[in-house]
């Protein structure tokens, strides 16, 4: 555990050190090159700013309306039959929209059921094998000025559900069920 946190602390300074020292070694004009890159990064953010406002407002409205909780409860009644704990449906649904909101629910689940319970394990594993679908898609596709996303959503859903199924099975094995 300590080892992993230690690595996390080290990795960023190390990456910066390696890049800058390697650049100097290869006789790259590091400072000027950095400024040039920084400028292009800066403008990429400016370009996605309106997207982000539009998207976050939509998610904010949907979350505040209580619709997500309603949806989760509705789905939860069905998922219990296929072995997915209904308690975690809100977490799973919210994770598709927002990572920070999902973190809040994850901590809630840890408090309520314990980190090493079956539910805690499913939550931990599923959170580490899925990403926010709608946020990623909107930001990435807006950058590319794409509105017709073809099979991206279904593919992303397929990957997410495969991950969730694997989480349930693996947590079951770990908890000895």
């Amino acid at each position, binding site marked *: 555990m300590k080892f992993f946190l230690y690595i996390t602390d080290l990795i960023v300074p190390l990456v910066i050190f390696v890049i800058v020292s390697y650049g100097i070694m290869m006789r790259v004009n590091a400072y000027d*090159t950095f400024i040039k890159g*920084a400028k292009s990064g800066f403008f990429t953010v400016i370009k996605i*700013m309106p997207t982000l406002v539009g998207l976050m407002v939509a998610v904010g409205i949907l979350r505040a*309306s209580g*619709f997500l909780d309603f949806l989760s409860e509705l789905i939860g009644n069905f998922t219990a039959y296929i072995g997915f704990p209904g308690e975690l449906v809100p977490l799973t649904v919210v994770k598709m929209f927002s990572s920070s909101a999902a973190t809040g629910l994850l901590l809630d689940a840890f408090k309520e059921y314990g980190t090493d319970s079956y539910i805690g394990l499913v939550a931990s594993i599923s959170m580490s094998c899925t990403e926010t679908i709608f946020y990623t898609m909107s930001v990435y*596709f807006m950058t590319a000025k*794409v509105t017709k996303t073809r099979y991206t959503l279904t593919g992303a859903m397929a990957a997410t559900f495969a991950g969730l199924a694997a989480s349930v099975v693996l947590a079951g094995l770990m908890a000895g069920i």
Partner: protein
Amino acid sequence: MLNFLWAGMILVGIIFAAFTGRMPEITNAALDSSKEAITLCITMMGVMSLWVGLMEIAAKAGIIRSASRRIRPFIRFLFPSLPDGHPATEHITTNIIANVLGLGWAATPAGLKAMEELSKLEEDRRRGRLSGPVRKPGIASNEMCTFLILNISSLQLIPVNVIAYRSQYGSVNPAAIVGAGIAATAVSTAAGILYCKIMDRGGTG
């Protein structure tokens, strides 16, 4: 797609709130979210400038080229019609490496640059300068779909944040889920790649 998704989220939210009497919350949520988006962008600008700046040095020094060479077979397998040496390749490579290492702050900038390059690639295809299927502007290419699905399927090996939360909430062995997490990530990524391969073969989709 995004058009209906976006409008749907807003309309469903407001109608639902009207029935549950949460209209004041909607007002706050709409205003706060817009502010939050700009705050997020301002934070992101700093990180993004830092990272893209560093990547520029790395690219000039040849670090990315040697890294891409190592995972080239993998990239070629995923993006069979991406022209060799296209600028998108290096951003895709960086994005994949950053994702695997769990450096979300580095993965997003590289991912956005990759999408920019992929849309330039589409532009070139429309003008007949590069080979590949020609699509109208605004339609995702196969490369974009694959790249997005790969990103969403999660590639992170060690879920550091989940481990940290687990230890915070008194787990006896917070890192116990690392093995299972890697296995589950492998399953979700494999499912995503399989799906892309099937759709790729389907041609125009």
